[in-house]
């Protein structure tokens, strides 16, 4: 059994004392080395979850445990060492005047010695494929490159959990693809849990576990396959389903019986040729 890394125990959160609850009695667990996608439409509370994990916000009710430590004002500096976060806007999280300065920023904050910094800058920039840009200024980089730098700067402090808070939302398809590739490659190499908060359904399919948020509550939880089998319910809460799911549905309506729920193109292809050879 894998170790628990993040545990939400009946967590509720709201910004104002008399405002509406943004999160309402949420409980879930994320394990070590697991990749989890959190989906839901705007205002469903998914970004709030990310900020709670990092101690950028504190819950009014309930408890959040990161690696066994409760998140509170005393522990946040330790917890931020374990939880790295990449935000949506590539420009607004770039602190340094050059790529290497930006990667160094998080390490400088933690008082890491200079020689160690140089080494880790080299390593992490290589890991995200940005070592050739190490002296570039941010305005000479594309959005996708800036996000890769942001990921490198989080990796530099070797966190146990990497949160991508809609990190690909502002990128073009090419940039998005490169980020997804980088992230899944890193996830395979290192012992690190991954939480991606996203609208992108392709990203969701790559996760091991999916949490669907709706109006501040956990609406469903499960593997991508379990989740996307419930198509009708999905439409009801206003979420889209992946293209393959839509195609399967259309094929069923056209009397092509597909029993298994295909998740990607290969599985759909598999289902189609088995159907074809049967008839």
């Amino acid at each position, binding site marked *: 059994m894998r170790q628990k890394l993040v545990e939400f125990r009946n967590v509720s959160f709201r910004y104002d004392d008399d405002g509406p609850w943004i999160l309402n009695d949420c409980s879930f667990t994320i394990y070590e080395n697991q990749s989890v996608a959190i989906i839901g439409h705007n205002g469903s509370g998914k970004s709030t979850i990310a900020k709670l994990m990092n101690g*950028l916000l504190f819950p009014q009710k309930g408890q959040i445990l990161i690696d066994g430590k409760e998140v509170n004002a005393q522990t946040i*500096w330790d917890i931020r060492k374990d939880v790295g976060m990449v935000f949506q806007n590539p420009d607004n999280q770039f*602190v340094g005047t050059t790529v290497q300065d930006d990667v160094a920023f*998080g390490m400088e904050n933690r*008082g890491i010695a*200079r020689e160690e910094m140089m080494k880790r800058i080299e390593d992490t920039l290589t890991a995200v494929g940005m070592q050739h840009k190490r002296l570039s*200024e941010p*305005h000479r980089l594309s959005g996708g490159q800036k996000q890769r730098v942001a990921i490198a700067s989080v990796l530099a*402090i070797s966190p146990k959990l990497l949160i991508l808070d809609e990190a690909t939302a502002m990128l073009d398809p090419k940039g998005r693809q490169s980020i997804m590739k980088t992230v899944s490659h890193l996830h395979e190499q290192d012992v690190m849990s991954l939480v991606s908060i996203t609208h992108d359904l392709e990203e969701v399919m790559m996760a091991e576990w999916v949490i669907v948020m709706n109006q501040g509550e956990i609406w469903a939880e499960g593997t991508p396959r379990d989740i996307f089998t419930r198509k009708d319910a999905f439409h009801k809460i206003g979420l889209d389903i992946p293209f393959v799911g839509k195609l399967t549905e259309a094929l069923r309506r056209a009397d092509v019986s597909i029993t298994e729920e295909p998740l990607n193109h290969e599985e759909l292809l598999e289902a189609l040729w088995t159907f074809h050879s049967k008839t």
Partner: protein
Amino acid sequence: MSNSLIIGQYVPGQSIVHRLDPRTKIIMIFFFVFIVFFANSVPSYSILAFFAFGSIVLSRIPFRFILKGLTPIWFLIGFTFLLHIIITREGAVLVDLVVLKIYSGGLIQGFAISLRFFLLILVTSLLTLTTTPIEITDAIETLLNPLKKVKFPVHELALMMSISLRFIPTLMQEMDKISKAQASRGVDFRTGPIKERAKAIVPLLVPLFVSAFKRAEDLAMAMEARGYQGGEGRTKLRILRISGRDWVALFLFAVVLAGLFATRHYS
């Protein structure tokens, strides 16, 4: 666009002046600004001029860059010159126009003050021409470090400067975008009376400010998420190193200083 994105007037190079520690350069210029006012004889001015032009030659910066930096100053230099010619009433009368007498003392004074001005601008612009803004920021941070004892927020000041430097190009790109967006909606920035053109700036500035505040908020959040908790216990990636050439430069500067005071005319 790419041209307008160069911050300050830094000219990249590998000359000895470029490679001096920024602190050395700042200290030298700081003292130069003072000693310029001590020069009062032809030899002392020559020594200062020699120092200034010598540094420019060593920096290997094309002279036209330096002249370009001086353009806004010419008017001021000319104005000071004229003012001294008109006001000073010493020495022999050189020209006697009915309303205005020009004295020899005025001419000398005018020349001297203009030369001081000229040398000052020359040397200070040499600093920004050979030093990147971020180097200047680092140098200021270390030079001001003793002020931490009196609770002066040195680290915060330096961080503010470096973040501003980092966001100048970003905000300029944004400005470009907004002005195009507004132009496509019919705002005219280029023609019409000045008053109208000034008014057209408003729909440009308001969105720019709104987005700058949004950026500031996001950035603060991102910095906090990356463990920023003020200057205490921070290490630094960029370091400044005083090397042999800095000592040589400081020594030469001391020689200039000694020469100046030796040739100065005491009365």
